């Protein structure tokens, strides 16, 4: 049986044979995609275009055209706002997280005492990223800031009486003629330090793996040729890491979207008070299209500058 198969294959040209092998490698994914995702997406589109009534395990659909979409965009009070604020958050977060995680990965890749511990700590937010633990963590964070007895109001009173005003420093920076939009971005970034740190664990690990896969001989050559550390970074480290920048960008966009309000919105629409699956399908499809669009723009912009071996 197998012998026959190979005999048949040898009549192929090399490229056709390679194409066949390639398809063989990819085939599990194709089956899974068609079975679970394609079918699921088609059904979701169906739901989004109809009125749905459930009875027991089954359901019945009545085609209503774009009515649900029209409702989402023109009548629903919160949807557009949630969507735009999530997109804006994402645009601010993504570059910050990428730079921060590359920076941290480079630092963690250096040799120093306690490196293993530091790496474990930076990965901790990923270990703790479960809905239950996240809820508990927010409570405990508040407790840690306020102490057990301090209430939020006494905290702010103290802060103002000591004279720590963030706005003072912001104005100071404004006085040295920093453009307002850059200033706003910086202030935003500082305010987001917590969320940036906790959501860049994965990216740090991916960058670390990339940094470690760079052949040491490349650095040796650069050293012998007299390259400065600055040149070494831009001529070796950065190009070798660049394919993973795209990966990280994809991950960060998706992750920041999943942390944003849109998914909660979808979830509450489907299973909350509304309990309307068709509207949930509309929201999730629209948000999916939005994320795909952003990814398409971002990755095409970055991949042009990416270095691949082949």
């Amino acid at each position, binding site marked *: 049986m197998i012998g026959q198969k190979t005999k048949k294959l040898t009549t192929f040209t090399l490229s056709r044979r*390679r*194409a066949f*092998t*390639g*398809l063989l*490698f*990819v085939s*599990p*994914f*194709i089956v899974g*995609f068609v*079975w*679970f*995702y394609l*079918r699921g*997406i088609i*059904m*979701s589109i169906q739901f989004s275009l109809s009125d749905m009534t459930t009875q027991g395990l089954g359901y019945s659909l009545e085609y209503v055209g774009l009515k649900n979409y029209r409702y989402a965009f023109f009548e629903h009070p919160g949807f557009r706002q949630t969507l735009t604020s999530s997109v804006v958050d994402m645009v601010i977060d993504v570059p910050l997280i990428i730079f921060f995680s590359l920076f941290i990965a480079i*630092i963690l890749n*250096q040799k120093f005492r306690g490196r293993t511990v*530091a790496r474990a*700590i*930076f*990965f*901790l*937010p990923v*270990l703790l990223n*479960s809905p*239950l*633990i996240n809820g*508990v*963590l927010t409570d*405990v*964070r508040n407790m*840690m800031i306020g*102490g057990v007895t301090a209430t939020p109001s006494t905290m702010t009173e103290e802060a103002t009486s000591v004279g720590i005003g963030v706005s003072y420093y912001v104005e100071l920076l404004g006085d040295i003629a920093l453009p307002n939009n850059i200033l706003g971005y910086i202030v935003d970034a500082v305010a987001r330090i917590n969320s940036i*740190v*906790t959501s860049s664990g*994965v990216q740090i690990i*991916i960058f670390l*793996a990339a940094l*470690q*896969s760079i*052949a040491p001989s490349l650095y040796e050559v650069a050293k012998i040729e007299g390259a400065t550390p600055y040149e070494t970074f831009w001529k070796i480290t950065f190009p070798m890491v660049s*394919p*993973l920048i795209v990966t990280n960008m*994809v*991950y960060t966009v998706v992750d920041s979207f999943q942390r944003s309000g*849109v998914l909660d919105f*979808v*979830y509450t629409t*489907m299973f909350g008070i509304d309990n309307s699956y068709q509207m*949930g399908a509309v929201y*999730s*499809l629209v948000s*999916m299209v939005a*994320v795909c669009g952003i*990814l398409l723009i971002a990755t095409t912009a970055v991949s042009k500058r990416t270095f*691949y*071996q082949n």
Partner: protein
Amino acid sequence: MSYFAGKIVKLKALREDTRFQNEARRAVRSGRELLAAIFRLVLIVGISYVILGPMIGIVASSFFSNSDKLSPVVYLIPQNPTLQRYIRAYQLLDYWKVLGSMLVYVVTLTLIQIAVCSLVGYGFARFQFPLKKFLFACVIIVIVIPLHSIMLPLYMTFRQFDPLGLMTLFAGGPINLMTRTAPMYIMTIFGCGLRSGLYIYIFNQFFRGLPKEIEEAAFVDGAGTFYTFLRVMIPNAMPSIITVAIFSLVWQYNDIFYANLFNISNNVIISKKLNTLNLSLAGPPDQILDPGIRALYVYAGIILMILPMILIYVILQKRFIEGVERSGIVG
């Protein structure tokens, strides 16, 4: 005057002395290194605190006795530390049994993920076939799509599991796979498990980054495609395999979405078991009515839950570093 003139001459002599120059340069270099080290230390300690702060709170609180919890003067360091929280959480979680079945579930799924996703990623990275771009776009869709949107279709697929009518043929009707772990295994085998799209993407990027020459050498030496993949590409991809292994272990361990969707038993999913902790403490025989005190048990439960993951991560991380040497593309 002459005193200063003498000094200046001495300084000039010093400047011309090569030994002094070397030493000065060395001092500057070590000073710069020290500065870098201090900067690194401050940065790492600062950011670590942002991450560890709440964790310290949880660990400290889990040792609180009732009086510590209620006392206004106790902050982080308990006056009467107790292990009671851990003991009760350990009993209620049925720790070793649940943890054991959880680890079997998670580890087997991770192995399947690595096998399937590396195959698919390699297929995308190195072969040209029709519709390749379209199929890769499908991988992106799998990464991007909010899972809620295919939730109901997925539920229906596995509630009445009947692929191509095979089940009707052999078992006489569709079977119900709810409350079992089977749906997760089926989805993972077909490259659609928890975040499989991302793993495919990582492997794809990694294989694309490896030089083609090593494969061509294997091909010229007469190795078949699968043999090349197993013996040449996989050993080279060790860093990415460890990366995917860590992610898959951790996310599968923390996953609650699929666990809820397929209604997998509490005795397999430890985070679901942990969710029931709060409720069972309120009822008999414990009858703890203060939610603040109940939270202390939950803290202990959380520590018990994440401990194995931290252990696995620390162990794998060593291999992660070893991966560097094994990834030796050159020499």
